[in-house]
């Protein structure tokens, strides 16, 4: 809110009102002053003239004799003086040649008055008037001269005059009071204008404030209808608008919130892009799958942060295509691996047309992590191939042996050798099939495991004892560190657990070269029993670590098979541990050895 806004508005409104009032007052006062002055002047002049006429008329008779005498007459002078004082006029008697014979105020001699306009007129036989500044008194004066006749002849004139100063004084007084009245009226007008403006502006000002708050997003604000009908109507309209706006904004917000929640909660990545490959929308999963720290903000170009050639190529292909018609979504799907995180993503890109002021083209990219799925697919097909391969190898050997044995010319030594080969391979075949059956029964949980209390230390010792000969034969030192006391610390199937440890130890011995060491340790933790089998063998590369428990998985093809493993040992270890509610982990450094850890839940001592 700008603060100064409404006050400026108020000022303007009151100022305008005041200007109008002031104009009106000035016009009225000026008119009254003009009219008053004209009236006063006219009235006063009329009044003065009447007084002058009376006085002059009274004087005519008396002055006839004085004029006839044509000499100084003290009695007349005195009379004139008295008359002048009484009427408060100046009275003058002038002979027909302009010589002043008597004057009520000034002592004689006085300058010849023949050139005075009123005297000239009077001497011509007419009454004469004039207004001018008197050369004798210096005041503005009204003059009236009347001719004095004797026997039909003008023998002189009498003149009465009165100063107009009284009138000027009265006029000045009138003007002063008018100015005073005008000033008062102006003050009242200002006050009135202010009050009126305030009364008119305050509801408007209030509404402006509310509208501004609305504009700033505080849609819960409402305006109280106040003031005249018009502003009340405006307030109501504003309120209706605000309510509608609030409703709409809230529904938009809800819709957007829902959309964001849905997108944010998806395991799949979603990226919407415009034709310039700028992000319109990206959810958190997309950022994670693409290896970005956080989702890109709308408007940032994808290629500014991402290098993913397959995605770019396909995206460009989708964006470059002419508008796909409705109902024919032209989706491109492919698998790809972004740099860095090594995940396999299933990506599909669909063209997008965004309806707006103008229809824009773009694309929506869907990403899902299919690393596990693809690996499972791979495992499944590997498994079939492996089983076939693993079964075929001993079978081929048996068949070869049988072929030779079937030949009649075989001597006994050879016969014995090939019978031994056939028997060994048949045993191997049996071992593989047994392991496979064990695995599938463990997996299917069809075989309910015996749940007897037993000692892991004892099971580990038994397993080690069974393999002592093999270890010795290979020149590998086999050590068992387990408590002597064979307390039953887990619930489980003894033969299965022994099988589990045997497989682990056999595996360790198998991949440890002569002179190496295999150490088996059993120990009790708080609520678990841990069996660790550590070797100083060749180790497992990091990339193979997650796969060693897969069936028939071999770090290096050819490694292991010739040493008699079925390729199922570690898979069995894992499944036996799982069947007992435990788990197995592996850590390894290539070239330095591996550590397998089996953890089983500890039996609670009841």
């Amino acid at each position, binding site marked *: 809110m700008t603060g100064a806004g409404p006050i400026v508005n108020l000022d303007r409104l009151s100022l305008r009102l005041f200007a109008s009032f002031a104009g009106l007052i000035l016009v009225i006062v000026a008119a009254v002053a003009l009219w008053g002055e004209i009236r006063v002047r006219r009235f006063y002049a009329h009044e003065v003239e009447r007084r002058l006429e009376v006085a002059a008329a009274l004087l005519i008779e008396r002055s006839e004799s004085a004029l006839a005498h044509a000499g100084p007459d003290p009695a007349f002078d005195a009379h004139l003086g008295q008359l002048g004082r009484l009427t408060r006029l100046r009275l003058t008697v002038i002979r027909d040649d302009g010589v002043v014979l008597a004057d009520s105020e000034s002592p004689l001699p006085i300058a010849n008055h023949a050139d005075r306009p009123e005297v000239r007129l009077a001497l011509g036989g007419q009454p004469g008037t004039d207004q001018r500044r008197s050369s004798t008194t210096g005041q503005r004066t009204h003059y009236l001269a009347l001719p004095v006749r004797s026997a039909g002849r003008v023998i002189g004139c009498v003149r009465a005059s009165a100063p107009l100063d009284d009138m000027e004084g009265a006029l000045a007084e009138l003007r002063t009071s008018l100015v005073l009245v005008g000033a008062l009226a102006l003050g009242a007008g200002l006050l009135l204008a202010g009050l009126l403006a305030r009364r008119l502006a305050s509801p408007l000002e209030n509404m402006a404030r509310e509208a501004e708050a609305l504009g700033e997003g505080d849609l819960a604000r409402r305006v109280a209808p106040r003031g005249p009908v018009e502003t009340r109507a405006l307030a109501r309209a504003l309120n209706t608008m605000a309510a509608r706006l609030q409703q709409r904004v809230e529904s938009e917000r809800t819709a957007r919130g829902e959309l964001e929640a849905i997108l944010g909660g998806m395991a799949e990545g979603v990226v919407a892009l415009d034709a310039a*490959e700028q992000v319109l929308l990206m959810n958190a999963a997309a950022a994670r799958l693409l290896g970005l720290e956080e989702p890109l903000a709308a408007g940032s*170009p994808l*290629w*500014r*942060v991402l*290098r*993913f*050639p397959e995605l*770019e190529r396909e995206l460009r292909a989708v964006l470059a295509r002419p508008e796909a018609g409705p109902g024919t979504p032209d989706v491109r799907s492919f698998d790809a691996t972004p*740099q*860095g995180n090594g995940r396999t993503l299933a990506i599909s890109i669909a063209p997008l047309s965004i309806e707006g002021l103008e229809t824009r083209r773009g694309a929506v990219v869907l990403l899902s992590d299919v690393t596990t799925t693809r690996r499972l697919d791979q495992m499944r097909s590997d498994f079939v191939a492996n089983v076939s391969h693993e079964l075929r190898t001993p079978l081929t050997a048996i068949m070869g042996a049988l072929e030779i044995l079937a030949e009649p010319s075989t001597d006994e030594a050879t016969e014995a050798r090939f019978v031994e080969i056939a028997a060994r391979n048949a045993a191997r075949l049996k071992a593989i099939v047994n392991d496979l059956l064990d695995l599938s029964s463990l997996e299917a949980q069809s075989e309910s495991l015996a749940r007897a209390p037993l000692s892991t230390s004892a099971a580990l010792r038994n397993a080690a004892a069974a393999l002592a000969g093999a270890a010795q034969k290979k020149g590998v030192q086999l050590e068992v560190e387990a408590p002597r006391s064979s307390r039953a610390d887990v619930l489980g199937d003894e033969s299965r657990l022994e099988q589990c440890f045997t497989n682990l130890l056999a595996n360790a011995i198998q991949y440890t070269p002569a002179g190496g060491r295999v150490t088996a340790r059993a120990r009790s933790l708080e609520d678990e029993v841990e069996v660790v089998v550590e070797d100083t063998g060749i180790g497992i*590369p*990091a*990339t193979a670590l997650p796969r060693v428990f897969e069936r028939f998985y071999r770090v*290096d093809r050819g490694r292991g098979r010739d040493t008699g493993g079925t390729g199922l040992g570690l898979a069995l270890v894992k499944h036996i541990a799982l069947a007992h509610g435990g788990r197995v982990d592996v850590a390894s*450094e*290539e*070239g330095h050895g591996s550590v397998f850890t089996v953890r089983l839940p500890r039996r609670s001592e009841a």
Partner: protein
Amino acid sequence: MKPLIEDDLAALTRQVMHMGGLVEQALDRSLKALLERDRALAREVIDGDAVIDRLENEIEERCLDVLALRQPVARDLRYVTGILKIDSDLERMADLAGNIAERAEILAEVPPLPFRPDVTRMAALVKRMVRDGLDSLQRLDAQLAFRTWQADQEADRLYRELIGQAIQFMREHPERLGDVMHLVGALRNLERLADHATNIAEDVIFVVQGRIVRHHMREFGAEVGGVRPG
């Protein structure tokens, strides 16, 4: 509306980043082929080189167009010239990745050699350098560029160590001399790839700071070394 120089530069960036992505991918695949003895993957890398060669020419032409038609100044000029140099670095890097793939193709056929752990380490380091170099270009981040440059010392060290091991191994197993020579060839290519990544890093610093730091990196490092990226 008249297209702006910004649009041209953005298009250029986009294309260079695409090429960078392809180079990265080629390197990634060639090393995977080498480490996992995957012939098919090696073949893919060798066949993919043509695309990168074509891109190199396109980018060069585009750079020259921008220089001639837009006459960029200051940072824009440095950017375009920097891209010109990085363009040829990237092309060389793709060739080197192709060479590694060729060696991997041969090595997949012979019994495995015992240097896997160290080769894996060096491969990871060089991949990281290439990625950081391209990231520093993408973000115009001089500090990241400097760190990329620094990593080259480690790459050189690993390389020398591996060569030492290889010589030792050849003494003990002279019958495998040919195989080891192929591995050494692959490693030399990898080491040179790291050098090109440092070239990119130097060009990025030139673009960002307007200073030619090639051959003066140590002084530059003394200046920015203490500054951690914010």
